């Protein structure tokens, strides 16, 4: 059944192209640092060299090897994105269903809370919190972004579940003596699975872009390398105005390629699975 | 019998789905005459809604008119609607000569505009120059004729109750006194009390001469029986029987008509007496219709020929039926 469901996805050109791009970048991040084992934080050679055979992406002001930085940075950014997504999703997948299933006052309280977090400008809040944290590991950044990112998902899960719970097949399963837990696993979760998967992808994007933004104003991870940190140093060292394009172009290209390929994957999935968007 | 108003000749309209055809209507001909209300009855998948689109020549992807003609008789001349480009239909035919009361009248009016503004928009398509006050006056008169307060046109659709909204839609659809009006299941979503009100309204349209003739499309014989004189019965993209409604109720000819009529359950003693009937099986997949008569797999009077040859509509005692039994 699942296989048959996903088959039409592989007919979508958009899906195929974007998944290839995504896999390529994931490989860059996972395998790259192994294939190209240069210390991303170390001193590699001459300053501010344009790309050459020796330094495929050139070097920065401190003689750091930019290819090594970009490969390791990709890895960190992916890690942060993934972790952010896990955190946001976990919160959303707890709050949304509780709100939908419990209903009543529980629902109203949880949804008010969700709406408040939704309306608080979360980027600003992330900046503010990050300011007070002296040590910011990649995990802390992900936690910060993850904790602020879940409300829209919780709301969507709640409303989808509400429509599922009132479906007649759910009532029929209950009439067959299903426990709430069994009902959730057999009838409810499959119904929101594709949506949750698509949201997970969007959360990854949020994490990657959020990290880059925080890093750029000096609030990124305090150790290690990330794509955002590479950009931050490029800005601090005036790389843009001094024409050192190899410093700030590659990390940006990777961010955009990564996040837009992920977004395209979700769009392609939506076109296949959402009957209202399916081409006639 | 009055003069012809609209005629569909040998129409085939197919939906193109993944390199295949869904033969939604297949070789269908129908004539509508002045002053008559024709009921078109059929169940889901019978092609009745496709037929309504063909009568208006509202052919949009994935539907395509493979074959056939749609003729409108206008002041002695004949216009072949199927040959007109869409823009021409929009400007000179739709809303002006032909019109429709759609199935879901609840949401048929632009929700975020006052009804009067929607009316003015319609007028702007048909006339180069319009006088706003004149149109509003005229529209208000029509609203009152139909039984909606004339202030309703200054309201948004959501401010009107269900029955009022339905009638406002009827008023808007008939503002320009179209010769031919399609009512596409206009009452199927309504509670019975509202339904009766709407049926009366539609009946009045003809009595007052606002429209010349009406095609009333429905799945419910009991409803159409209150309003139509002639009944067209459709099954699986074909017309199986055309006759006066009284005769059909007295003596249905086609086995499908018979089955359909005897499955109707109304609170009448006759129904309890005759019992409730049903047709076994399910309608065919119109991507692969059965050979011969499309009803033969479900027909209890099936002959050998039914599997091989397609029955044509033929005249039997002043009635038309497509069945080898006659």
């Amino acid at each position, binding site marked *: 059944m699942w296989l048959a469901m996903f088959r039409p996805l592989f007919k979508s050109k958009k899906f195929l192209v974007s998944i290839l791009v995504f896999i390529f970048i994931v490989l860059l991040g996972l395998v790259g640092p192994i294939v190209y084992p240069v210390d991303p934080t170390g001193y590699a050679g001459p300053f501010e060299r344009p790309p050459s055979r020796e330094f495929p992406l050139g070097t920065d002001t401190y003689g750091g090897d930019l290819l090594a930085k970009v490969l390791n940075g990709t890895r960190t950014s992916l890690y942060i994105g993934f972790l952010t997504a896990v955190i946001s999703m976990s919160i959303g997948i707890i709050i949304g269903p509780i709100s939908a299933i419990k209903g009543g006052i529980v629902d109203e309280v949880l949804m008010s809370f969700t709406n408040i977090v939704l309306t608080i400008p979360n*980027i600003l809040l992330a*900046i503010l919190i990050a300011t007070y944290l002296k040590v910011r590991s990649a995990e802390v950044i992900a936690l910060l972004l993850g904790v602020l990112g879940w409300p829209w998902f919780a709301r969507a899960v709640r409303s989808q579940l509400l429509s599922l719970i009132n479906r007649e097949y759910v009532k029929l399963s209950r009439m067959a003596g299903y426990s709430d837990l069994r009902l959730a696993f057999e009838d409810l979760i499959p119904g929101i699975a594709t949506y949750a998967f698509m949201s997970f992808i969007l959360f990854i994007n949020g994490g990657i872009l959020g990290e880059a933004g925080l890093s750029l104003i000096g609030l990124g991870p305090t150790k290690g390398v990330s794509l955002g940190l590479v950009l931050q140093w490029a800005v601090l060292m005036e790389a843009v105005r001094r024409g050192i394009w190899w410093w700030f172009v590659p990390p940006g290209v990777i961010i955009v390629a990564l996040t*837009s390929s992920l977004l395209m994957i979700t769009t392609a999935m939506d076109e296949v699975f959402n009957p209202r968007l399916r081409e006639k | 019998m009055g003069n012809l108003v609209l005629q569909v000749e040998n129409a085939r309209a197919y939906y193109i789905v993944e390199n295949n055809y869904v033969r939604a209507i297949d070789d269908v001909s129908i004539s509508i005459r002045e002053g008559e209300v024709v009921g078109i009855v059929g169940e889901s998948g019978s092609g009745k809604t496709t037929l309504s689109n063909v009568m208006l020549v509202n052919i949009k992807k994935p539907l395509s008119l493979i074959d056939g003609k749609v003729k409108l008789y206008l002041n002695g001349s004949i216009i072949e609607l199927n040959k007109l480009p869409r823009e021409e239909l929009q400007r000179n035919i*739709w*809303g002006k000569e032909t019109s429709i009361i759609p199935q879901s009248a*609840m949401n048929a009016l632009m929700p*975020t505009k006052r009804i009067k503004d929607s009316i003015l928009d319609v007028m702007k398509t*048909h006339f180069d120059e319009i006088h706003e006050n004149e149109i509003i006056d005229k529209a208000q008169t029509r609203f009152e004729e139909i039984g909606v307060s004339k202030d309703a046109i200054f309201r948004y659709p959501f401010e009107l109750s*269900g029955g009022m909204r339905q009638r406002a*839609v009827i008023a808007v659809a008939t503002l320009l006194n179209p010769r031919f009006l399609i009512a596409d299941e206009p009452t199927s979503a309504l509670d019975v009390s509202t339904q009766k009100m709407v049926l009366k309204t539609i009946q009045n349209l003809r009595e007052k001469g606002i429209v010349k003739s009406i095609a009333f499309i429905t799945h419910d014989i009991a409803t159409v029986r209150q309003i139509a004189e002639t009944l067209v019965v459709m099954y699986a993209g074909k017309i199986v029987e055309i006759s006066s409604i009284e005769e059909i109720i007295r003596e249905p000819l086609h086995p499908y008509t018979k089955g359909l009529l005897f499955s109707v359950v109304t609170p009448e003693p006759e129904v309890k007496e005759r019992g409730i009937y049903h047709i076994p099986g399910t309608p065919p997949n119109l991507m692969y219709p059965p050979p011969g008569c499309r009803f033969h797999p479900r027909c209890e009077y099936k002959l050998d020929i039914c599997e091989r040859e397609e029955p044509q509509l033929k005249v039997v005692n002043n009635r038309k039926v497509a069945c080898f039994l006659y």
Partner: protein
Amino acid sequence: MKGYALRPFLKYVSRKFIFLLVTYFIAITIVFILPRAIPGNPLSTLLRQIFQQGQANPELIRSVHKTLMEEFGLGKPWYEQYIDFITRAFKGDLGTSISSYPKKTLDLIAPVMPWTLILLIPSIITAWIIGNTLGAIAGFKRGSFTDKFTLNFSLIVSQIPYYWLGMLLIFTLSVKLHIFPGQGGYSQGTIPAFTLKFILDMLYHYILPFLSIVISALGGWAIGTRVLVIYELDADYVNFGELLGLKEKTVFSYIFRNSILPQVTGLALSLGGALGGALITEIIFNYPGTGYLLFRALSTLDYPLIQGIFIILIGSVYLANFLVDFVYALIDPRIRLGQSEGS
């Protein structure tokens, strides 16, 4: 009659207002709690740093210390600190800057705020209009080349961070091609004034940061509106309108109008994110706005200034949020007049 018609509108608007007010209160509370709740007490770290920096003037250090102790009310019970904080915040006293001691935070923010508003408001509105129009056209012509192109373009563009696009624009149009200035809000050496010369100079500097926000923000709107329009294509009023002869143009205007309404509330929700992006864009462009001030405050760890900026920014976001919702309630008759439910 008139009063009756107003009722749903007022109800909607006042509900929004109360909700935003409560949320703002919570946001300020978070601003209050954060420095006190985070382990390692950043305030004492800060104080230590001030001493360590060993600025020459011990008198200055002492008065900075005194002001900070007062403003943060350290030593007092937390609820007194809290009440102090809130009352001062509502009086508009956002504390004293450390890096620019003894200037009041508000006096530092006031002159840079207009720059941010001038950059942000026109650019997000422009992006909203262009993005929605593009998306609506694409949705209306769904499946066409225009649609596919617009969609793919928007999918990529929507993922470009404002600031990175800013970097690319500076590098190509300023550094390489010398068409536009790549930094600042106006030429160095000129003094802000209401002269035509200055305004032209300002606009000249305005173009690149403006473009970088507009281009990257429009993609998201286009994607969203396209889907809304596609949903609307099969709506009953569209089919009925067409069969009454409405021109394609009119039908499009109907669909456009109805799909854009939810995007108005979308605008309200996106403001926070847009502001965050714009702040960083200002940093890239050395644009003399709040973002740049914030960046300075962050690098000097000027906590009172950082807090002040946040209280103002979050407040502005909520104010704008409310205004957008107000406009929304005005233009959507279903909200203004109160749609009867379940009819």
